[in-house]
């Protein structure tokens, strides 16, 4: 069964329709890349999955359970909403690291706050916090940042900041990790280090949705690709097939702009 099913999602801001009848599914351990020109609704789609926007229509299922259903609006408690949110992780284009915390603190903050809700927190506090710190350090090491744990965001390069942000998103072990153009805010010479980390995650079978403009990367790393235009999914399929042999004329036109560039 698919870990994520998105059914007929629609979203409008006022009278502008930004997402129209978006449906796809994602298997556990697979990576899905979303490509498309500016304004096609890619960010909005990720924001809907992460409950930063509320879809106007449609349904979102994780492991077969509806986490969102526009046809059955329910007033969710903050607690419930948070629990549903934790199915997803999001890495932002502009990192959004917390500036007052070190790299390690950025990674461990949410996990520590969440641990406070554990029943055994009071009795096991020291051990729990130590484990979380250890986990945070391990994640930073995985990102190649073992020696940067005590640095503050402003002391890190853009590529390093984005890798801390990835570690932060991984810390809560989301079922599906979303990336919104993770390298678009970076200088070209820094994109490689971030892409390498994401590639590593794909090799470990992390379930991911990656919005990207890096076509070669998408082709290589993703299992599936979705091409979006004006709020619609124009084409979706096997990654290599979509890039090498697009079925739709619009996809072809979009891709040709990149291969020339």
């Amino acid at each position: 069964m698919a870990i994520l099913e998105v059914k007929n999602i629609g979203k409008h801001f006022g009278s502008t329709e930004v997402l129209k009848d978006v449906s796809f599914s994602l298997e556990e351990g697979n990576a899905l890349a979303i490509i498309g020109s500016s304004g096609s609704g890619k960010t909005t789609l990720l924001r809907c999955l992460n409950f930063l926007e509320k879809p106007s229509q449609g349904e979102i299922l994780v492991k077969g359970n509806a986490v969102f259903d526009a046809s059955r609006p329910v007033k969710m408690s903050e607690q419930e909403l948070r629990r549903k949110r934790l199915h997803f992780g999001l890495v932002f284009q502009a990192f959004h690291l917390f500036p007052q915390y070190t790299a390690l603190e950025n990674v461990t903050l949410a996990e520590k706050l969440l641990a406070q809700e554990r029943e055994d927190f009071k009795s096991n506090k020291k051990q729990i916090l130590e484990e979380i710190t250890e986990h945070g350090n391990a994640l930073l090491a995985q990102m190649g940042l073992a020696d940067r744990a005590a640095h503050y965001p402003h002391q890190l390069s853009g590529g390093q900041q984005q890798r801390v942000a990835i570690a932060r998103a991984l810390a809560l072990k989301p079922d599906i990790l979303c990336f919104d153009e993770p390298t678009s805010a970076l200088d070209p010479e820094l994109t490689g280090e971030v892409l390498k980390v994401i590639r590593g995650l794909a090799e470990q079978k992390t379930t991911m949705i990656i919005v990207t403009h890096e076509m070669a990367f998408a082709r290589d790393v993703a299992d599936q690709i979705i091409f979006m235009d004006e709020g619609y999914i124009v084409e979706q399929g096997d990654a290599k097939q979509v890039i090498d042999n697009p079925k739709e004329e619009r996809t072809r036109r979009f891709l040709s702009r990149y291969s020339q560039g």
Partner: protein
Amino acid sequence: MFGAVTLELMKGLWTTIQIFLLTLIFSLPLGLILGVGSAGRWKILKRVIQVFVWIIRGTPLMLQLIIIFYGPGLWLGHNIWSGNEAGRITATVVAFVINYACYFSVIFRGGIEGVPVGQREAGQVLGMTKSQIFFQITLLQMVKRVVPPMSNEIITLVKDTSLARIIAAYELTFAGFSFMKSAGITWPLFYTGVFYLAFIGILTLLFNYIEKKLDYFR
């Protein structure tokens, strides 16, 4: 003479310090509440706060102080402030708290709105509660932003306490002035100035220290 003047000024300074501290203690949280309200999503509340702040900032503090001190007596037929020094100080603090809460609210609002939405969203995505996001993420960034304008306002507050003289609260300036009236000497006025300078000097050092402390992040 010098000793006597010093003693009187000390007495005045004590009143000044009381007005200053009490005003801060009450106007900072009140200003924060107003600031949060005016930065929030509730349109009617925003509007109400906006109008209130406009009125308070648009009229002289001295006028507000006079109204607060004399108004109740004229409207209700009896003075709600006891006629002694404590009553005058209380009335002054009430007027100052209202006034300064408005100024602080504008600063706090700027501080809140100055924190990028991405910070809040990053917290949300990580499953944090609203209050965790506020206390663990937004608050300190806000504080960093508001310290410089806040220190200006607080230094102004020190000097504004002299307005309490208008309702005959025996604060520092009144104390200095009393010698001119009684003994016809002016040097205590300059001496009074030295008191203010010392007070503000200490505050400036404190604010510089806080700004330095918050310098570790951008």
